[in-house]
């Protein structure tokens, strides 16, 4: 599985063993990377002009979904599921766009911070409702999806508003070398800056613990309810980042949520996160997002009917996950 449990002092077990066990644990992620590389070569073959511009476009289109997938991965690892991610992205996006339009840079920085806090709040509401009412995650977040998207329409009736220039500059365009898209760098930095410290903390362990075996976690002294709320708060935070990314890359706010919720589920499944909870990480899903997007791009290059492309995307998802679990079964039997 992709970077399941963080091992802090793995170095003591000998570097070779450490590398070997790291490889063993990250087989899925490595496999995805290989698949991605093959896909890139394939893209280059069918479209010889695909190059720096292509990568640039890929990074820009991937950014919001990648953040949504990170949000989903964290929640699913903790044993839940968040069907309100798309709506939270829409709400945070319109709040950002409507407040940032024609304002000073300093004010817009305040708006960004406010929007991130809003994301934490939305997530906290999701989590708290689940923990307090004991209504299943899937029901609560489905209901909250309606609530948040209604709120988004209350804030902004039609697409509009604007983005601060610095925010757009932050994600659009290359960074120095034309092959390095800013969106990609920003994505990796944000995810690494938040996820790595979290996954190494006791909270990160608790996150895997409640997703893996809730009773055992409870008996080990983990506060299940609190951990769950934190997981949803992190989900809300990443959704808000996704909303900001939407505003930054389009230059306005869109109150109707895109297909991000279900795509995020697809991406994490592809990225090796178990829907049963407890297994997986966030880097696998990131690669999963890129793969999903690249497959779409290839379909357009092949001049396939876009509707057919959607069908193909679904079939590929099933195929890859099935192949993966077959390989894993064989490995564990050997």
């Amino acid at each position: 599985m992709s970077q399941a449990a963080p091992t802090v002092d793995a170095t003591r077990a000998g570097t070779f063993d450490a590398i070997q066990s790291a490889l063993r644990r990250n087989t899925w992620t490595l496999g995805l990377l290989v698949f991605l590389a093959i896909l890139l070569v394939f893209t280059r073959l069918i479209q010889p002009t695909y190059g720096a511009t292509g990568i640039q476009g890929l990074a820009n289109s991937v950014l919001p979904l990648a953040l949504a997938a990170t949000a989903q991965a964290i929640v699913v690892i903790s044993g839940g599921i968040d069907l309100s991610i798309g709506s939270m992205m829409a709400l945070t996006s319109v709040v950002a766009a409507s407040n940032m339009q024609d304002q000073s840079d300093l004010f817009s920085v305040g708006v960004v911070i406010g929007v991130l806090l809003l994301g934490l709040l939305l997530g906290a509401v999701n989590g708290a409702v689940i923990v307090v009412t004991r209504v299943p995650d899937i029901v609560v977040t489905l209901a909250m999806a309606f609530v948040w998207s209604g709120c988004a329409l209350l804030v902004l009736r039609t697409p509009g508003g604007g983005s601060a220039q610095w925010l757009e500059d932050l994600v659009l365009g290359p960074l120095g070398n034309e092959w390095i898209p800013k969106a990609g760098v920003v994505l990796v930095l944000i995810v690494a800056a938040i996820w790595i410290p979290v996954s190494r903390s006791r909270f990160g362990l608790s996150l895997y613990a409640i997703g893996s075996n809730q009773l055992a976690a409870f008996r080990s002294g983990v506060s299940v309810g609190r951990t769950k709320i934190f997981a949803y708060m992190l989900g809300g935070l990443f959704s808000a980042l996704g909303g900001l990314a939407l505003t930054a890359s389009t230059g306005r706010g869109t109150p109707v949520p895109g297909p991000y919720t279900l795509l995020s589920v697809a991406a994490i499944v592809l990225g090796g996160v178990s829907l049963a909870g407890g297994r997986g990480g966030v880097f696998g899903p990131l690669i999963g997002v890129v793969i999903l997007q690249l497959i779409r791009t290839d379909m357009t290059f092949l001049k396939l009917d876009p509707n057919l492309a959607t069908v193909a995307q679904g079939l590929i998802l099933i195929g890859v996950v099935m192949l993966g679990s077959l390989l894993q079964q064989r490995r564990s039997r050997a």
Partner: protein
Amino acid sequence: MTVTQTTDLLLEASGIAKTYGAVVALKSASLAVRPGEVHALMGANGAGKSTLVKILTGAVRPDSGTISVRGKPRVAHSPADARRGGIVSVYQEPALIPDLDVRSNLRLTETPLPNFRHWLDELGINGLDLGRLVREVPLATQRVIDLARALAIEPDVLMLDEMTAALPANLTERVLEVIGRQRGGDRSVIFISHRMIEIAAVCDRATVLREGETVGVVDVTPGSEERIVELMLGDIVQSMPGASRTAQDRNGAEPRLVVRDLTARTKLQGVSFELHPGEVLGVVALEGQGQDELFDILAGSDRPSGGEVRVDGKPVSFRHPADAIRAGLVYVAADRAEALLPQRSVRENIALPFVTRVRRWGPINLGREGKAVKGAIETLQIDTRAAREVRRLSGGNQQKVTIARWVASGIRTMLCFDPTRGIDIRTKNQIYVLLRDLAAEGAAVLIYTSELKEIQLVCDRVIVIFGGRVVGELDAANADEPALLRAAYNLKSDALMPEEIAAEVVAEAAAAAHPETDQ
């Protein structure tokens, strides 16, 4: 029954009550644990033991009553809270996170690593790779890891809730040894087990619960087992089948089940036996000698790699448990969770196997089903106060439900794999009686049990499996515990036994000699 003369109690609980809706789990339970003692908490299933444990560990809040630790009142609000207050528990199911490695699990509970290593050594597990995922570690080792982790925290009160019930014999011995050494210090152990031998071996005193009340505190001395069982049972008269039975005349009858040279990969290496109608055939084996595979094959959930199985003279090969059920071989597992739908009612659980056959996918004849189910519930005396959801029944009653579902549809051949694991004496007795009754009505029963005492009570004949082979066959009359143990360890009856096994045999034989089991 609170002990009041000692003022320096480590843990004192009194007047604890808890009701769940209409079900009274605890009426008035008390428990007083002195420092440095190993204290047994005894009670039949449903007596309220598990509720009391949950209250002490903070998983459940009591409706009333007081709890104090070292004289200070303290009600834990969560296991984390109880842990901080010095109460740590270990359950039969290890509280380890399967998807984390061992080291991360230790970090989760903030367990000091050197202490953990020390206790792991004491418990006889050496060279454990802390980087391994828990789910890749054998279950028995997981249980020991869980115990070592609890010991490493050095709690004031260590609570062991049937943690030995599913341990292999050699590890149990090690665990008991370590627990025994905890005596006399500043800390105490609360020990819960259905095995009287273990209680006698390590406990100083025993508190007995019955129907939600503490009915007595007994000093554990040689001979006190009888008193404990009396307290547990109350005035319910035990009816126990006699050990001697008239030998059945099997000459004319065709055997119900014939197994010839059955092999399964490396686990079974040519097992042969016959099972006759009206017979209860015991299987005795140490942990992992191939008995699991044998039962899996006969129940249709695994396939043999060679050999022959005949049912009523016809060779069979099962591809699915449904095939085995159709051939009349029904399976009762040790682990109730494997067999039951925990959220569904007693009725649905009992009716499940005979309404799910494809040709009966039409509307369910509720009237007929109801009659069959009711009959089965009565036969087994299932306590149906919480019949709407099976998971709310006690373990013993759950096991009765798994048996009842086969009784309801009429049993030809029953395969029981350790059916009385973790079940109290009273329910055990009822199950023994039931198995005898089934045999008397012409059913054939194959039973594996880890409790050798059961063999003479319930079986006509017993086969012993060692290393995937049948190494012995005894009549019930000769199958006392020493004989079975010798056979199970594959020792010739005149050979010298290793010292520790001999000691165990003597201890168990002594325990078996007490009349608790065959009054």
